[in-house]
C-alpha cells in the first residue's frame, strides 16, 4: 500500500443475516485502487458490486476483513467528507432549484455563502448545465437531472467519486453522451472514480481498471488493467483492443456464472 492508494480492501467479507439464512454479499474481497484510477465494477445482480461501493461509503459495515479509504476507516473518511456519492436515481429535492440542490451539501458542510455561489457556478459549467441554476428538477430531462446530481457530488472537495449505476435508468443515446462527458470530467478534475455498472461497453469504455465480480458468494473473479489510452473518442469502441478487453470481461462474467450454477 502506497501513499497513492485510495481504496485498500483485505479479505473483506460481508454477510447479511436474512430469514432464509445468511447471504454472503461479499466474500474475501481484495482490491487496491490508486489515485486517479477509473475503476468499474461489473457483474450480474447479487454479485455484491453495489454492496462493495456502499462499504467504501460507510453505508454498510463489513463483517470481516479490513478496508481503508484514503488510509483511514470508511467511517472516518465519511466524516471527513472524503467522497461524493452518486446514486442510481438523481434524488434531487423537488422543492429546491438545481442550484439549490447543488448548494445543499455545501450548506450542510458549512461553506461560506460566497464560496457556495462560485462552486455552484463552477460545477454547473463542468457538467454543461450553466444557465439552469434557477430551474426546478421537473423542468429538466432525466439525463440533465442525473448530470445535476453528479454536479452536486463534485461541488465539495472530495477527490473520490463513488457512482452506483448512475446512468442505469437512461436510454442508450443519452448514456453515450454522458459517458463521454464523464471521461472528460475525470480528465479535467483528476478524481478517483469507482463506478458500478452492468453494461460491458460502458465499463470498458470508461475504465482504467475493470473489476469483474460474480454472485453467491459475491467475489472478484478478474481484475483487468485496461490497455486503452486515456484519450478515448466514442469510436474507440470499434477498435480491436476495445473488443479484446470486452471479450475478456465477458469471459470473466461467464466463468463466474458457470461455477455458481
Amino acid at each position, binding site marked *: 500500500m502506497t501513499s497513492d492508494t485510495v481504496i485498500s480492501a483485505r479479505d473483506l467479507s460481508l454477510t447479511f443475516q436474512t430469514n432464509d439464512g445468511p447471504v454472503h454479499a461479499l466474500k474475501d474481497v481484495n482490491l487496491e485502487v490508486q489515485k486517479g484510477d477509473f475503476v468499474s465494477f461489473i457483474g450480474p445482480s447479487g454479485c455484491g458490486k453495489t454492496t462493495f461501493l456502499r462499504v467504501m461509503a*460507510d453505508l454498510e459495515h463489513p463483517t470481516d476483513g479490513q478496508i481503508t479509504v484514503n488510509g483511514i476507516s470508511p467511517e472516518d473518511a465519511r466524516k471527513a467528507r472524503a467522497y461524493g456519492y452518486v*446514486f442510481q436515481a438523481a434524488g434531487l*429535492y423537488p422543492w429546491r432549484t438545481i442550484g439549490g440542490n447543488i448548494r445543499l451539501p455545501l450548506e450542510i458542510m458549512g461553506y461560506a455563502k460566497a464560496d457556495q455561489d462560485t462552486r455552484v457556478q463552477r460545477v454547473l459549467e463542468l457538467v454543461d448545465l450553466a444557465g439552469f441554476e434557477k430551474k426546478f*428538477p421537473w423542468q429538466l430531462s432525466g439525463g440533465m437531472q442525473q448530470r445535476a446530481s453528479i454536479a452536486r457530488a463534485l461541488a465539495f472537495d472530495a477527490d473520490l467519486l463513488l457512482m452506483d449505476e448512475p446512468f442505469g435508468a437512461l436510454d442508450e443515446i443519452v448514456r453515450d453522451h454522458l459517458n463521454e462527458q464523464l471521461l472528460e470530467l475525470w480528465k479535467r478534475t483528476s478524481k478517483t472514480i469507482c463506478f458500478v455498472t452492468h453494461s460491458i461497453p460502458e465499463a470498458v469504455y470508461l475504465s482504467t481498471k475493470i473489476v469483474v465480480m460474480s454472485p453467491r458468494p459475491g467475489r472478484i473473479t478478474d481484475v483487468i488493467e485496461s490497455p486503452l489510452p486515456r484519450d478515448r473518442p466514442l469510436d474507440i469502441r470499434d477498435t480491436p483492443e476495445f473488443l479484446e478487453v470486452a471479450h475478456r470481461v465477458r469471459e470473466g462474467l461467464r466463468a463466474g456464472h458457470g461455477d455458481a450454477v
Partner: protein
Amino acid sequence: MMRNLVPILTVVATLFVLWYSAAIALNAPWARDQAARAGQELGFSALVAETWSQDKPKLPAPHQVAAEIWKTTGAMVLAGRGFSKRSLFYHSWITFSATALGFVLGTALGVSLAIGIVYNRTMDMSVMPWVIASQTIPILAIAPMIIVVLNAVGISGLLPKAMISMYLSFFPVVVGMVKGLRSPGAMQVDQMRTWNASPAQTFWRLRLPSSMPYLFTSLKIGMAASLVGAIVGELPTGAVAGLGARLLAGSYYGQTIQIWSALIMAATLAAALVGIIGLVQRITLKRMGMS
C-alpha cells in the same frame, strides 16, 4: 364553468326537493292535529303551506332556516348590532376562537409527538397505542370531566374548550406527520449520511419539507375535528355562548329552526376553515414544486 355548474345545481336542487318533501311528511301529523282540533278540513295546498310555516316544526323548511339565519346575521349587521349576543356571528366567533386555539395546540402536540415517534425508538414502540386508545374514548364522556377538572384548578373559559378541541385534532396530525416524516426513501436518507449531515440538518432540510403534503391533509381533518371538539365542549358545560350553546338552548326549548340555523352556521364555518387550509396548501406546495 358551465359543465361544472350544471351537475352541482342538479344535486342542490335534488337536495331541496328532498328536504321540502321530508318537511311535509314529518310536519303533516301536527298540522292535521291542529286542524282537527279547530274542526277544520285541510286541503292539500293548505296542508303544504301549513307544514312549511310552523313555529316549532319537527323539520323546518329551508326558507325558514334561511330566514332565521338572515335574522341573526345580516339583518343584525344592518341594524348595527352585528356582534350582539343574539347574533350568530357572535356565537360563531366564540366557537371559532376555541376551535382555533385547540387547533394550534393540537397541531403542536401532534407534530411534537410525531417527531418523538420518528426519532426515539422507545416512543416509537410505546406512544402509538396510547394515541389510538385516546381516540376510542367517546369525547362526550370525557368532555365534562375535562371541564370539571380544569375548573377545579381555576381554569375556565376558552382554555377548557380548546383542550377538548386539541384532544380531537392532535390525532390526525400525529398519524399524518409520522407517515410524512418517514416518507423520504432509504436513498435520500443515505445521501444525507454520505454528507455526514447532523440529525437536525436531516430533519430541517429533508424530513420536514418531505412531510408537507401529509401535514396539510392532516391539518384539514384536524381542523374539522377541532370544530367538533369546540361544539361538544360547549354542550355539557352550560355555556351561554357559542354554536354549541345555541344547539343546546334550541333543543331545550324545542326551537328546531334555531338548531338548524346553528348547524348550518357550524357547517359553513367548517367549510371556510378547511377551505383556508386548502388554499394555504395549494400556495405552499406550488411554491415548493410539489403539487
